[in-house]
């Protein structure tokens, strides 16, 4: 017994180092291995509060470009409003409030990151505002990411610029789809992988939008344009560099998409699989 204590006292510095190293390494490994792991995120009281304070200062520097964006979007919305053809021809079911398929929550990004290979954003809206895990986040130009974790007042977003992110996407003109990933290199481009070789009509400049298979985003939300096409040596599928519409290094207000039918859909699919 004495010897054990002696050993512990003699090597206490080393043991403390190993303990701390063990804790931090396990946190590192956890954050890399599991999706939605129980690791510490910036959606908590301390860091969320600090980031929202810093953001209130930051906002003043980009007021001009934000104003321009809002003006552009206003103009677009006005043009839709003025060009409405006949309100009688609208789909009836969508106009009844209780049957709306999607709701939109407006929020603001208070922390943006794009310099590492696994990037997360922090939003100033949380479970108090109805934000839940796995909701889609977009802005007026295109997609931004997917809600990863929420706290009462803040939420973190798995950015499209994250090597863990996978989003179903398709070509606007041909319905061929693939999955959208990021190779961790350039913040302006993401990769559309697993596009079948049959989709040979694709050209540089074609528009990529979100696909119908996605349970997170509604169909036909803009992502980007085809920039470069090459054939993957290993799989013989096309891999396509997609130039994002969004400048991910400069984001302000975003919209969180709440799909009211998502749970019903997932439940149905789960039961179908169980019955097989």
């Amino acid at each position: 017994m004495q010897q054990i204590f002696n050993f512990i006292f003699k090597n206490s510095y080393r043991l403390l180092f190993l303990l701390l190293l063990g804790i931090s390494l396990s946190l590192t490994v956890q954050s890399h291995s599991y999706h939605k792991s129980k690791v510490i995120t910036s959606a908590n009281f301390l860091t969320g509060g600090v980031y929202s304070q810093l953001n209130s200062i930051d906002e003043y520097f980009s007021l001009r470009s934000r104003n321009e964006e809002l003006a552009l979007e206003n103009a677009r919305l006005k043009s839709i409003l003025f060009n409405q053809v006949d309100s009688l021809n609208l789909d009836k079911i969508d106009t009844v409030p209780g049957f709306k398929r999607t709701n939109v929550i407006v929020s603001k990004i208070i922390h943006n990151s794009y310099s590492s290979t696994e990037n997360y954003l922090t939003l100033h809206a949380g479970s108090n505002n109805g934000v839940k895990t796995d909701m889609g986040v977009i802005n007026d130009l295109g997609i931004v990411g997917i809600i990863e974790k929420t706290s009462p007042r803040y939420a973190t977003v798995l950015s499209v610029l994250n090597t863990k992110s996978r989003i179903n996407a398709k070509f606007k003109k041909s319905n061929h789809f693939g999955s959208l990933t990021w190779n961790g290199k350039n913040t302006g481009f993401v990769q559309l992988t697993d596009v079948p070789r049959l989709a040979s009509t694709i050209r540089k400049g074609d528009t990529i939008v979100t696909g119908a298979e996605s349970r997170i985003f509604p169909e036909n939300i803009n992502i980007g344009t085809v920039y470069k096409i090459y054939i993957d040596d290993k799989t013989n599928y096309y891999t396509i560099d997609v130039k994002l519409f969004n400048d991910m290094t400069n984001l302000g207000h975003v919209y969180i998409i709440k799909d009211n039918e998502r749970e019903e859909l997932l439940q149905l699919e789960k039961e179908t699989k169980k019955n097989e």
Partner: protein
Amino acid sequence: MNSALFTNIARFIFLLILQVAVFNKMDFLGYINPYPYILFILLYPVNGNKYGLLFSSFLLGIIMDLFCNSGGVHATAAISLAAMRPTFFKFSFGVSYEYQTIKINDKITPERFSFIAISVVSHHFILFLLEAFRMTYFFEVLLRTLFSTLFTLLICILLIYLFKPTRR
């Protein structure tokens, strides 16, 4: 003793705020970020409590991880640097460094510069290696380490000169 403790706590908070509010937002060319918060570990008194150093660098790293959403990457790099610090001292200032009155917080001599440079390189290499976590990114890790090291070194030296304690 008490004033040294106070200086260290003040330095801890000041560097953390500076890192989060200013340097994390730099993103020069999209991916080059300086991390001068490690200056806390470098400027910790040479003969100070080593348990205190280890524990405070862990705390510093974990708080950085909270702000960067990065798991435990900063914490691992920070405590590794804290553990390797005596070796680097020995390398830069000679074997009997403990009996000299070393002050990092002073004019830059070749010894001091080499100490800061080695520390920054090893910290950044561990940091970026763990952040990428895949051997396929090895070349990018090296590139990032190189550029960020230059950036951090520059800012560390500027900060040291800026806050040099006034003489007499």
